[in-house]
């Protein structure tokens, strides 16, 4: 049965429904952000774990030049190794009818019979290749979708210099290519990079690897040491051109997924904390005001024998109802946003299925967090209500004390209108409340910045990457590293203006007990097309001799400039050398190592070799150039800069827009909630005074300007701290989002600051207009008759 006290609660709540909705919405944003981030992270993690387990995703990966199958047994004897699966992996150039430029394909061998022992395929359409059927391949789904290829279709590939027709037998997914990206690139390009699985015997023949392999994947026993297995494996593969094994944590696809998980977890903390904090603050203000205005009712309840606990529960009830309302909206919001986030992931991460799921324990956590915020925000007011001495509460509250403001005491009072004086004195009388309101609005501004600045960063990074650091039109990579003279051949291609070579060598750097496997990049001294930048956007300068490495790589190796490190070349002649670190740079990627190309070739002493080149060309010759590149047997692949950029922008723009929309909505809600509450409370506290002014002849406009002047002043005062807090939160976020392989610059464009201010000011104006309607409808007689 509903008691009268519960009925009072309900009706009081209805009487302040817009305020309650405002608070509940702020709270719901916090709950929504929390649920979105954690549930998406959990969905992603669980999907990943289950998929990896089902497809036997390997723990260790290694590439070699050519190793005999007999080596497999010896690898299997390494303590801790569970399964060993040798394969043949090769890069080929693909010729797709609907694509003028060449695409890159990665061929991976499939066993003649049955499933791969590790990194199993998840077949989506068709079937695996059949033994003996020449030219059959299984295509990865993203590439097939990008070109509309289905089983039965065909495509051409240049395999080891020979053009071959391939027939699509099936379409599949692999745990190895959840995030499918060409090595050395930053964005996936499903149109120009595909994975093709082919029968082993065909690949043996094509790449001259009968009875041999050039790639091995390994799974470990539970509790085995990755490090020890990698060391033993490297020893075994070294004679066969082993390029150094690496664990799953450094596998490209997996690293992108796990970086995303790290960033999702970061998103689960800061934004929800802000929203819940603001909601707690709003509750505090509103319930305090409620208790103050219901002093007499509280005293009456107590005089009739309601005890402190019952009174406390009654006022706590307000918080609970608002919290539960916010929680319900928040769960719906979180599910909606989580679905949006997941559908974005589906575009980037190729899992057999990825569904957003609401987790019961995350719901529990969100419930606890929002109840915590609700109770924290209300506790002070509730305690005040419970401890209110009834006899004292019967007496009217002492009149508020005002005093002259600083402006007036400075003798400048004459400059102020009476309205301005009232506004200033009101703010001065309750400085804490005013400060909290300013903080609330400032937080709204900060949140808008926080929600929008990621777009600034992405834009900045794109600009840096695609226009400052990389100024080529096309990048080509070679199958076999040719002599540097190959540059001249490229220069002969139609329309080519400039060709700059680069060389990337697989190496392992060792410093004491620490080591890291990476690609060492050699760049020409007179480079103008590929110019790596440091964190301060200065071109990284490469001395003629010695290594320049990233800050975090220096940390991993515990090395300083001047230190000598061991450089093990993992390809070609496999020399081991000592080299000095001549520079440590702060850059965005974190684990890069650079050398001057000439210095590198001198050091490795294996000839003046290059791995690829950057080209600029005349747009008019595009078609002819594409055709020529397609025909070059030694060119493994080419990347068109603008095509990659546009592909990325197309995929991202919708997500970014959606993110910005959500954030604007969220911050608008906070700003509206804070300003509206501040104005409503001022109105209810001062209705008597304002009505009196109306009675003695003030116009509606004049009366409104007293109250709204206060709101306006608070909003204006909030702008500067809001921008500062926003920048601070952005700085914290940039640090929280950084992973070993990715650092973000702190970029907040003036337009983002402006946008935040405009949204908050607009929200303030809207809430002021809503309150203004109430001022216009002040019931003068009723207000004057009341004894408050």
């Amino acid at each position, binding site marked *: 049965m509903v008691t009268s*006290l519960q009925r009072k609660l309900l009706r009081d709540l209805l009487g302040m429904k817009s305020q309650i909705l405002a608070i509940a919405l702020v709270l719901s944003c916090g709950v929504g952000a929390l649920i979105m981030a954690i549930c998406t992270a959990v969905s992603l993690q669980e999907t990943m774990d289950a998929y990896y387990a089902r497809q036997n995703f390997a723990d260790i990966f290694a590439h070699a030049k050519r190793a005999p199958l007999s080596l497999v047994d010896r690898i299997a004897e390494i303590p801790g190794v569970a399964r060993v699966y040798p394969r043949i992996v090769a890069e080929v150039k693909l010729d797709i009818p609907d694509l003028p430029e060449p695409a890159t394909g990665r061929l991976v061998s499939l066993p003649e019979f049955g499933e791969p022992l590790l990194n199993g395929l998840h077949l989506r359409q068709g079937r695996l290749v059949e033994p003996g059927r020449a030219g059959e391949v299984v295509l990865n789904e993203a590439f097939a979708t990008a070109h509309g290829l289905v089983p039965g279709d065909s495509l051409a590939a240049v395999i080891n210099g020979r053009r071959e027709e391939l027939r699509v037998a099936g379409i599949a997914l692999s745990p190895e290519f959840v995030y499918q990206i060409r090595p050395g690139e930053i964005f996936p390009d499903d149109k120009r990079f595909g994975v093709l699985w082919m029968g082993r015997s065909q690949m043996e023949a094509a790449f001259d690897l009968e009875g041999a392999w050039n790639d091995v994947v390994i799974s470990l026993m539970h509790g085995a040491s990755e490090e020890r297995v990698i060391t033993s494996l490297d020893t075994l593969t070294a004679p066969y051109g082993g390029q150094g094994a690496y664990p799953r944590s450094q596998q490209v696809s997996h690293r992108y997924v796990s970086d995303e998980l790290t960033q999702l977890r970061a998103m689960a903390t800061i934004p929800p904390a802000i929203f819940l904090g603001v909601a707690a603050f709003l509750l505090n203000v509103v319930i305090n005001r409620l208790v103050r205005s219901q002093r007499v009712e509280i005293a009456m309840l107590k005089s009739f*024998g309601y005890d402190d606990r019952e009174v406390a529960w009654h006022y706590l009830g307000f918080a609970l109802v608002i919290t539960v309302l916010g929680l319900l909206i928040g769960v719906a919001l979180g599910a909606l946003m989580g679905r949006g986030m997941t559908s974005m992931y589906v575009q980037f991460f190729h899992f057999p299925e990825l569904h957003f799921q609401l987790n019961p324990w995350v719901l529990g956590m969100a419930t606890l967090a929002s109840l915590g915020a609700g109770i924290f925000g209300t506790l002070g007011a509730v305690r005040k209500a419970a401890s209110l001495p009834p006899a004292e509460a019967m007496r009217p509250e002492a009149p508020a004390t005002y005093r002259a403001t600083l402006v007036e005491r400075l003798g400048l009072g004459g400059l102020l209108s009476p309205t301005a004086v009232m506004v200033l004195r009101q703010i001065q009388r309750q400085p804490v409340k005013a400060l909290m309101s300013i903080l609330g609005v400032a937080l709204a501004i900060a949140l808008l910045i926080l929600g929008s600045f990621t777009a600034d960063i992405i834009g900045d990074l794109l600009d840096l990457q695609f226009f400052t650091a990389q100024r080529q039109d096309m990048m080509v990579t070679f199958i076999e590293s040719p002599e540097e003279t190959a540059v001249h051949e490229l220069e002969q291609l139609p329309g080519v203006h400039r060709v700059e070579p680069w060389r990337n060598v697989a190496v392992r750097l060792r410093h004491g007990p620490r080591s890291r496997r990476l690609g060492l990049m050699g760049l020409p001294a007179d480079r103008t097309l590929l110019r790596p930048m440091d964190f301060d956007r200065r071109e990284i300068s490469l001395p003629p001799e010695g290594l320049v490495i990233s800050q975090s790589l220096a940390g991993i190796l515990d090395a300083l400039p001047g230190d000598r490190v061991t450089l093990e070349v993992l390809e070609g002649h496999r020399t081991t050398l000592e080299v000095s670190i001549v520079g440590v740079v702060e850059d965005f990627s974190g684990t890069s190592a650079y050398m001057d190309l000439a210095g590198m070739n001198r050091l490795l002493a294996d000839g003046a070799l290059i791995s690829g080149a950057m080209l600029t060309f005349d747009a008019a010759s595009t078609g002819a150039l594409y055709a020529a590149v397609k025909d070059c047997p030694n060119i493994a692949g080419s990347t068109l800069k603008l095509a990659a950029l546009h592909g990325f922008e197309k995929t991202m723009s919708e997500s970014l827009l959606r993110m910005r929309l959500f954030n604007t909505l969220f911050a608008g809600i906070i700003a509206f909630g804070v300003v509206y509450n501040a104005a409503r409370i001022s109105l209810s506290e001062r209705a008597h005074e304002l009505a009196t002014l109306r009675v003695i002849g003030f116009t509606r406009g004049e009366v409104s300007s007293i109250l709204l002047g206060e709101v306006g002043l608070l909003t204006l005062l909030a702008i500067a701290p809001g921008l500062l807090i926003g920048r601070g939160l952005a700085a914290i976020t940039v640090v929280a989002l950084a992973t070993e392989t990715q650092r973000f610059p702190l970029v907040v464009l003036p337009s983002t600051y402006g946008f935040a201010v405009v949204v908050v000011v607009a929200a303030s104006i809207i809430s002021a207009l809503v309150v203004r309607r109430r001022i216009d409808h002040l019931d003068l007689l009723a207000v004057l008759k009341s004894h408050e």
Partner: protein
Amino acid sequence: MVTASDPDPAPLFQARDLVKTYGSGVSLVNALRGVDLDIWPGEFVVLLGPSGSGKSTLLNIMGGLDQPTSGSLRYGDQDLTQCSTSELTRYRREHVGFVFQFYNLVPSLTARENVELVTDIAREPLPATESLDRVGLRERMNHFPSQLSGGEQQRVAIARAIAKRPAVLLCDEPTGALDVKTGVLVLEVIARVNRELGTTVAIITHNAAIAGMADRVVMLSDGAIHEVRKNSRRVDPSAISW
């Protein structure tokens, strides 16, 4: 009916040397300066005095809303001055009905729901409808306070106060905010409660006209009782005017 003239030796309230001071130093206020007072069961007492005479303080202490600085106040066998906060709450919950000058109805509750605020927590309450019946407001019980006149609101407040069948009804200027005609109506209701339910009634007022309807009139000024007058005959409220 029990009156002061009965030889009943057991007063309902027994106040001895009640002192109440507020503040300290220069701002020290002596609200009560040693009040002795007995009130017998079923008695109708009017505490008369100007504002600042200490009558509200005395009523608050009798109602268990406040504690005296010194002295003792017994309610039956219970020493109210020795009671803990929760014991005072129980005392108010079970024994006392309050009527306030400004009615203190909850604006968001209807007349009936305001009464139910009390019946929800009382042990053997009158049904809310019966309480409202007794103050002649059964017809208007689903109205909100804003839809009722001042006199009607005060009668709802009385219905609310008597719904718990209190032993004592404490009224703080119950007609203070009302015109004569409605004030008299309210006084009639209070007199009827005293007569029909045997509820002990204490009214504080500065309106001397009301004094005539009491069994006894206790006159306070400056925190002390300076005169107690016994009415040989209680005036019917309808004969009162001010």
